[in-house]
């Protein structure tokens, strides 16, 4: 390394020195720095990437603004999708706000009408069937011993009131004393 500073080295390549008062001394280092300065150029990303990220940031910024305004309640659907879905090579983010799920009304509009009618009929039939079964279950006589005894007593009382002879019970019919 030579000890004498090269006059004009820093002035010729101002970015080689880190301060105005600094100068590179070694000619080999000056040459290496010159080559690095020329070779290490800034690289730009693709336009497509730049726009995609811009859209994502825009969406994130809008969400941040809504959150800051207490906008969580304003969202008609709180489900959030983390990533935009690309359709036909065009990111969804470029067409609409990708950070919210669509409202339920929008989802319903996308569902075919036949499916909606079929679903409604099926649920109606199910409800009617359940009602019939419940009605039948309620009208069915109870099989408990006390219920049977009560029904027999009720029938006997009715026949006595009508003047007819009471019908023998199962034990009398079988000849049991």
């Amino acid at each position, binding site marked *: 390394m030579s000890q004498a500073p090269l006059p004009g080295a820093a002035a010729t390549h101002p970015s080689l020195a*880190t301060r105005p008062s*600094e100068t590179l001394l070694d000619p080999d*280092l000056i040459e290496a720095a010159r*080559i690095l300065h020329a070779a*290490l150029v800034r690289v730009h990303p693709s336009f497509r990437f730049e726009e995609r990220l811009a859209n*994502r940031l825009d969406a994130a910024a809008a969400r941040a603004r809504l959150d800051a305004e207490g906008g969580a309640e304003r969202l008609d659907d709180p489900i959030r999708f983390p990533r935009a879905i690309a359709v036909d090579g065009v990111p969804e983010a470029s067409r609409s706000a990708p950070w919210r799920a669509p409202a339920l009304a929008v989802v319903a509009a996308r569902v075919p009408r036949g499916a909606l009618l079929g679903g409604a009929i099926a649920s109606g039939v199910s409800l009617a069937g359940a009602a019939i079964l419940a009605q039948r279950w309620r009208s069915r006589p109870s099989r408990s011993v006390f219920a049977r005894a009560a029904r027999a007593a009720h029938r006997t009382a009715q026949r006595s009131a009508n003047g007819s002879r009471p019908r023998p019970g199962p034990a009398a019919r079988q000849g049991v004393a």
Partner: protein
Amino acid sequence: MFGRAKAEPERDPIRIDVDRAAVVAAKRQPQRFAALYRKYLPQVYSFAFYELGNHHDAEDVTERVFLSALKGLPGFEERSSVGSSFRVWLFRIARNAISNQRRTMARRREAPAALAEQLPAELGPDGVALRREERAEAWSAVARLPADRRRAVILRYVEEMSTAEIAAVMERSEGAVRVLLHRALKSVARDLDRRSDT
């Protein structure tokens, strides 16, 4: 490497953050962050690209950096030192994201891409002055540097940062950064000299 003229006092040229107005505006209205994004996208992307060696990983890292920056902007506080400027803060985020990406790449056992193959053939006015072979040799020499020296070189020659800014990004002292740059330049010079001999 750097001789210092005794007559000139130590002065730090950057005291006021040039992005102060944009940062204040973005804090008030997150959508104003777009100005900072447009300004720093090529810088962050270049940093990631030279560190990782391929466009795909550079895009991943760049995306994460800006989303993190937007999210963390309300917590960013500028102080009256170089180390707390928005640019330094952003590059610290980038440095961490790049380190994480490098760890992921190491786990995936990915071979580092050859930088020279990834860069465009035409580099514009600065690149024209340099022969194509010379450029390729320079990139190879940089790629062979140890990680901290390479990072210092990239911040110095790609991002054109001052020693103070590099020190703040790398969380080292300015003296340590000067040593890193000096050793990096010596390695590159030796490498280039060896190649020119063969």
